[in-house]
């Protein structure tokens, strides 16, 4: 083309097809794409399937961080934590490995593992650092593919995947149970219990218990569970029994089980067992359950069966052979029209009757019982124990019972005849006894007793009492001294002499009829006066003088009539009284001379009287007797004076003694003596008064 450019070159442009023109380099992006897609696909495939778990509380669960583990292997992670529509609970969305998610059954359990310290130990410690995780427990069931679960509030107590048997226990009171408490068999821990839950449909509490392998083989339908709280105290006929288990047992409580009778059948998962309060209860419960090939009997009672219940024992001579399985009332046509009877159905264990172990034909038992009934076997009610109102059915031999036979009815078990039971009304007796005890005036008696004791105590503590014997002794000594003094001893003799003189005079007078003579003399004077009056009636004029004279005579007569004699007697009595008084008197020693004189005078007068006996002498005698009596009276009148003097002396002495001091021993003794003396003086005046009132006593005795 141009001159300066290079020559035209034949340049052939190879024209190829678009595909053939492609470079091999394009394989690189293709490979990269393939690898990337492969990685993406793997990621997608590994992403897992979302499942939802509903928790009430998901504390610590964090999206993208919290993992889900199955047997401690991570099988997924939390993708999202949200709420359900009404915000009442939390939905945790978890991506779970596809292979695992495919096998998740609906009953898979999920719970959040948190650190936990309990009586059973410390768990979940690793989560303190790493944060919580969700643990899954399930029985893989391929193809289940469940997607929505409800999470547990807390970890199940039995480690998931542990082989064993889960059973259900029922009890009335779970107070001694805590979740995770151990279950023992002969002291070996073989399982544990889960959270007790209240059962609303029935009374009671149910909870699951898990028995680990291989101990679950020990379970059968004859197994009984009982509480072992670790501490048991029982008081029975065998005495006091106290047993304390391990400390852990005390804290956690626990259960034990054992097979209490033979012939149990294997249990199924979730079988319900009753939980008993104690081992005894559990063991005796064997009888409250139907026996193997039990023989049924019925018995009708006329008595009240209050206290008898289904499960009450049936005893044969005290040995338990069965139990009451049912009680019902029936109406019977009896002797007195329709009457209500109570029918108890008894379940008898043939093996307990000693009729072989297991394979006993029912007819054998019935034959045996028929024979026994013919020989007097009867059923009656009895008390289970002394203090219990619970009844038992006793089968006893009553030889004197009316003849009866086992009643075989077509549609009923054989009926065994019953006899009237001899139930003492223990309750009423005890009540009466208590009432009587209650009525005892215990408090009053006690009060009185206390008062008496207090009085005795103060009395005994009184020093005066202690001194009293001494004072008495000294007083007696004094009295003895006084009595022993010659004067006193002489005095009664004198008085006696005087008195006997008096008696002699009186008897002489009576014998002499002195009084009668005097009286008749007076009478004749009277008669004379009367005749003079009559005469004077005839003689008029001199009447007044005569009347005057008559009056004087009458007055004289009255005077005579009335008594120089009485006066004399009184005086004599008073004399005697005075003499009597003097016997005990202190002052007798100093008897006034006037008394002696008076006595002498009296004696003189009496002598005169004795010598006399003539009517003429009477007046003179009487006059002298009156003088004597007056003298005696005077002397007697001085007695009070003596008493007063004694009193005075006593008072003086007392004041003297008082000046020594109030409480000294001497003081008291002296005072006591003085008091005695005073008393004697008082007795003297008393005697005087008595003699005054009844003077005859000294003469004729009381």
């Amino acid at each position, binding site marked *: 083309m141009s001159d300066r*450019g*290079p*020559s035209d*070159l034949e*340049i052939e442009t190879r024209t190829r097809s678009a595909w053939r*023109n*492609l*470079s091999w*380099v*394009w*394989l*690189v*992006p293709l*490979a*990269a*794409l393939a*690898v*990337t897609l492969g*990685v*993406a696909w793997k*990621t997608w495939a590994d992403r897992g399937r979302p499942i939802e778990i509903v928790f009430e509380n998901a504390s610590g669960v964090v999206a993208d*961080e919290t993992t889900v583990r199955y047997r401690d292997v991570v099988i997924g992670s939390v993708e999202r934590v949200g709420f359900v529509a009404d915000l009442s609970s939390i939905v945790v969305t978890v991506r779970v490995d596809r292979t695992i998610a495919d096998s998740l059954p609906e009953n898979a359990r999920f719970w959040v593992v948190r650190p936990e310290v309990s009586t059973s130990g410390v768990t979940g410690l*690793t989560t303190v*650092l*790493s*944060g919580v995780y969700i643990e899954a427990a399930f029985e893989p069931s391929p193809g289940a593919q469940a997607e929505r679960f409800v999470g547990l509030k807390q970890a199940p107590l039995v480690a998931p995947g542990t082989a064993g048997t889960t059973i259900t226990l029922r009890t009335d009171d779970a107070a001694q149970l805590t979740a995770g408490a151990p279950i023992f068999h002969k002291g070996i821990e073989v399982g544990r219990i889960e959270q007790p839950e209240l059962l609303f449909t029935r009374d009671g509490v149910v909870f699951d218990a898990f028995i680990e392998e291989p101990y679950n083989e020990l379970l059968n339908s004859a197994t009984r569970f009982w509480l072992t709280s670790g501490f048991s105290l029982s008081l029975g006929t065998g005495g006091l029994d106290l047993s304390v288990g391990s400390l852990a047992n005390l804290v956690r409580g626990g259960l034990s089980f054992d097979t209490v009778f033979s012939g149990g059948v294997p249990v199924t998962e979730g079988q319900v067992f009753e939980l008993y309060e104690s081992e005894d209860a559990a063991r005796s419960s064997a009888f409250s359950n139907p026996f193997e090939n039990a023989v049924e009997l019925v018995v009708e009672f006329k008595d009240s069966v209050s206290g008898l219940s289904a499960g009450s024992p049936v005893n044969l001579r005290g040995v338990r052979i069965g139990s009451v399985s049912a009680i019902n009332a029936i109406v019977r046509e009896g002797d007195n029209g329709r009457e209500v009877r109570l029918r108890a159905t008894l379940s008898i264990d043939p093996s307990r009757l000693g009729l072989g172990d297991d394979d006993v034909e029912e007819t054998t038992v019935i034959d045996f019982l028929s024979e026994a009934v013919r020989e007097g076997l009867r059923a009656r009610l009895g008390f289970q124990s002394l203090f219990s109102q619970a009844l038992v059915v006793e089968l006893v031999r009553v030889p004197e019972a009316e003849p009866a036979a086992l009643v075989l009815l077509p549609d009923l078990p054989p009926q065994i005849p019953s006899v009237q039971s001899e139930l003492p009304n223990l309750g009423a007796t005890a009540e009466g006894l208590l009432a009587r005890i209650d009525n005892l005036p215990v408090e009053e008696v006690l009060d009185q007793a206390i008062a008496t004791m207090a009085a005795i105590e103060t009395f005994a503590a009184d020093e005066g009492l202690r001194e009293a014997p001494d004072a008495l002794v000294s007083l007696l000594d004094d009295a003895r001294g006084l009595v022993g003094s010659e004067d006193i001893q002489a005095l009664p003799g004198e008085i006696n002499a005087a008195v006997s003189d008096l008696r002699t005079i009186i008897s002489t007078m009576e014998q002499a009829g002195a009084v009668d003579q005097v009286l008749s003399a007076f009478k004749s004077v009277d008669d004379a006066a009367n005749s003079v009056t009559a005469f004077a009636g005839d003689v008029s004029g001199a009447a007044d003088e005569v009347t005057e004279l008559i009056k004087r005579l009458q007055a004289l007569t009255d005077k005579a009539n009335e008594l120089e004699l009485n006066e004399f007697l009184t005086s004599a009595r008073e004399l005697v009284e005075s003499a009597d008084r003097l016997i005990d008197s202190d002052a007798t020693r100093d008897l006034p001379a006037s008394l002696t004189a008076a006595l002498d005078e009296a004696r003189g007068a009496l002598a005169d009287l004795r010598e006399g006996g003539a009517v003429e002498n009477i007046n003179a005698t009487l006059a002298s007797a009156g003088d004597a009596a007056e003298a005696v009276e005077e002397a007697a009148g001085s007695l009070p004076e003596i008493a007063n003097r004694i009193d005075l002396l006593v008072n003086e002495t007392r004041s003297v003694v008082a000046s020594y001091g109030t409480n000294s021993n001497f003081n008291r003794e002296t005072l006591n003596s003085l008091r005695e003396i005073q008393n004697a003086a008082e007795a003297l005046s008393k005697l005087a008064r008595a003699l005054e009132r009844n003077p005859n006593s000294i003469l004729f005795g009381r």
Partner: protein
Amino acid sequence: MENARSQTPVLTAHEAGLIGCTSCGKVHRTGTDRCARCGATLHAPDGKSLQKVWAWLVAGLVVYVPANVYPMLRTTTLGQTTDNTIVGGALDLARHGDYGVALVVFIASIVIPIGKFAAIAYLALAVSRKVRMGPHARHITFVIVEFIGRWSMIDVFVVAILASLVTLDFAATIRPGIAAISFALSVAFTMISALSFDPRLIWDTKYR
């Protein structure tokens, strides 16, 4: 050099019936198969090299996707494992207040690779006349891409160093994620892509 700045078309060796050795630069006559000096195979600039560029670029782009989606670092601290993507890591840093470091990471890991992709793609398009661009601008772009390319591996190096240094067992452990490999591949692919670019095409007018 004034010519180079001018917009006047330059006469290329190809147009002059010559062919330059890409290894040592010796010019031979068209039709020569091997370089007389270094023995390298001589080939005329053609669309094939552009195909290579595009292919490697696409591969780099493909691999760049998982590099951003998958975690770059897997940090395990006291039992807690945290996955960090590139962007996530940068955002974490920013959230913790390390804006400077976050910016460096962001530029090194996001801006530069994406810029490189864009630059190479633009260059390739410009060479094939899909977009208008002066040969001098193309040249400068090419130089920049080549220069930056080797620094793009900075992220991968950081991950490699961290993963080998921080292995404190339970306390703290850092492992590279899938994204680290992807990112390394992506960088490698873009470098190859840039290398595949025949700089002679910048000046070639044949495709004009």
